[in-house]
């Protein structure tokens, strides 16, 4: 079937693209391997809530209208929100349609799927940034008696065996799971590498209100010094909870979580952790302070005075190794990041590390675009509300491409 544009993925990014394509009367289909908002339905743990407050969660022409603007959506609420957007915009979604191949020849893209083939002039890849969990290679050396989980197969503490849990990674996923597992009565050891520390609220406002008000989130990708680093930066230590509480390492220490350094290797059945814990604390504390200083410098009036947060407490005796055969650790949760997957993409637009080599969502192959990746065109691209400006810009480019190549 011939179509002008194929959009791959019916998450918030693909649907936002569809919205702007429809505005321009560009005929298109949105191909979805599962259902609308599939990753939010099937690839998240039960207690997860959005990191962004409800008032900030918006899609083009579509915003939260519930009773709790300062709250954070559950996964079920996110699914409803995205689904309503799909309905309102009448997005031409084809569900249960898995893309198996995209190739380029004769100025057209051949998109093969589980339910049929498309020939399109343009393609928007909106298949997500978190298709697969990333787990270090040395996980192969973990003794078989220890059960291993990733955020994709973790749903809640009750599925884990009783006893100690080693949570690896201290970004949003790791700190949230560490807190919930420790509260379930399982003693948690958390392996901490470089991380971004943020208070949930600052001077009475959500920290993400500050990110927005200060203009940090509107910073464009071509204005960022080290874009590679910005795009790889894991999510900050935040959780969306009813009490809007901060979930930093000091919170976890107070809960009884034991902090250790970055997990570097397994040798003779022992996990070996970095001795550089103090410095990752110092880097995160200093960075948080610099950010809060820039917020204070905005001179926003009618707010409580500036706050200063205690430095991250260094454990009195941080362990450098842990015997994985001793029975102390019964399960491991790898919160070590995610990666997109493009094994269906037969157009040479990936970099040496298997990531899309794009310029603000524009790929080197004419008519091929990406949406929904971290810092795609702005710092806020990573978040749901960041998609509107990105999708508009990318569809503008796509429309210009069509106009120049009738």
């Amino acid at each position: 079937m011939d179509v002008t544009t194929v959009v791959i993925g019916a998450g918030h990014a693909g649907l936002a693209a569809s919205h702007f394509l429809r505005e321009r009367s560009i005929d298109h289909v949105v191909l979805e391997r599962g259902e609308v908002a599939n990753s939010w339905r099937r690839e998240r743990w039960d207690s997860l809530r959005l990191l962004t407050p409800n008032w900030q969660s918006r899609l083009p022409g579509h915003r939260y209208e519930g009773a709790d603007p300062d709250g954070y959506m559950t996964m079920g609420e996110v699914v409803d929100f995205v689904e309503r957007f799909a309905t309102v915009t009448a997005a031409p979604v084809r569900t249960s349609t898995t893309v198996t191949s995209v190739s380029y020849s004769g100025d057209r893209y051949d998109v093969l799927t589980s339910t049929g083939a498309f020939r399109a002039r343009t393609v928007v890849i909106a298949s997500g940034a978190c298709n697969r969990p990333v787990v270090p290679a040395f996980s192969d050396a973990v003794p078989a008696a220890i059960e291993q989980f990733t955020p994709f197969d973790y749903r809640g503490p009750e599925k884990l065996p009783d006893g100690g849990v080693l949570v690896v990674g201290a970004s949003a996923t790791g700190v949230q799971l560490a807190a919930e597992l420790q509260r379930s009565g399982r003693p948690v050891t958390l392996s901490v590498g470089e991380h971004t520390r943020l208070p949930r609220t600052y001077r009475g406002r959500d920290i993400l209100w500050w990110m927005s008000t200060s203009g940090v989130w509107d910073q464009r990708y071509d204005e960022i010094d080290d874009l590679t680093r910005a795009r790889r930066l894991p999510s900050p230590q935040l959780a969306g909870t009813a009490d809007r509480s901060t979930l930093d390492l000091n919170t976890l220490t107070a809960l009884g979580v034991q902090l250790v350094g970055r997990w570097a290797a397994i040798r003779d059945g022992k996990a070996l952790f970095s001795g550089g814990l103090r410095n990752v604390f110092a880097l995160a504390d200093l960075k948080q302070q610099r950010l809060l200083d820039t917020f204070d410098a905005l001179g926003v009036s009618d707010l409580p005075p500036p706050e200063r947060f205690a430095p991250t407490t260094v454990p009195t005796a941080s362990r450098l190794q842990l015997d994985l055969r001793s029975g102390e650790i019964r399960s491991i949760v790898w919160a070590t990041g995610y990666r997109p997957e493009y094994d269906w993409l037969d157009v040479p637009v990936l970099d040496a590390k298997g990531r899309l080599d794009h310029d603000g969502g524009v790929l080197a192959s004419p008519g091929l675009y990406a949406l929904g990746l971290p810092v795609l065109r702005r710092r806020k691209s990573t978040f749901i509300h960041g998609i509107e400006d990105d999708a508009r810009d990318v569809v503008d480019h796509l429309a210009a491409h069509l106009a120049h190549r009738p």
Partner: protein
Amino acid sequence: MTTVENGVNVQALLEARTALQGAPEAAQFTWRATSKWDHGVHSTTRVQQFFGLGAEQSHKAESVFDADHPAVFAAEDNGITPIEYLLVGLAGCLTAGVASVAQNRGIQLRSVDAVVEGKHDIRGILGADPDVRNGFNDIKVTFSIDADASKEEIEALVAQSQKRSAVFDALTNPTDVTVEVA
């Protein structure tokens, strides 16, 4: 921004970073040292050649290092103890990092001093207590820095220097070490 002169050619380093991003094979270096036993626990180690940027390289002169044990170890003290060389390496690496980061951030340094202390329970190497490790129990580095910068900026220099330090990484993370007989 006023011109800062710490003597670090940051421009060359930034250019190298850009160039090596596209040429990972040229970034593979091998550092070498050759040692010779003298007498007792005294040995002499020489360093000059290394490999990098795809070719053999050489320092402009050979450096010679004597390693020995002090008189309290009943040795002749012809040079510093091998484990002290780790402190030399750490001090040199972190200080170089501070200077480089300061240059890159436009911070003029006036003085950078560091005291490096490694806590070592020698019952380990003597075999006096099997529960005591051979190496350092912990290392502490204390920087005193005089610079045109705030306390927070100086703390950030020192933190960034650790983040990019080869020796800090080598000491804080395990390294696979092979020792064989030729």
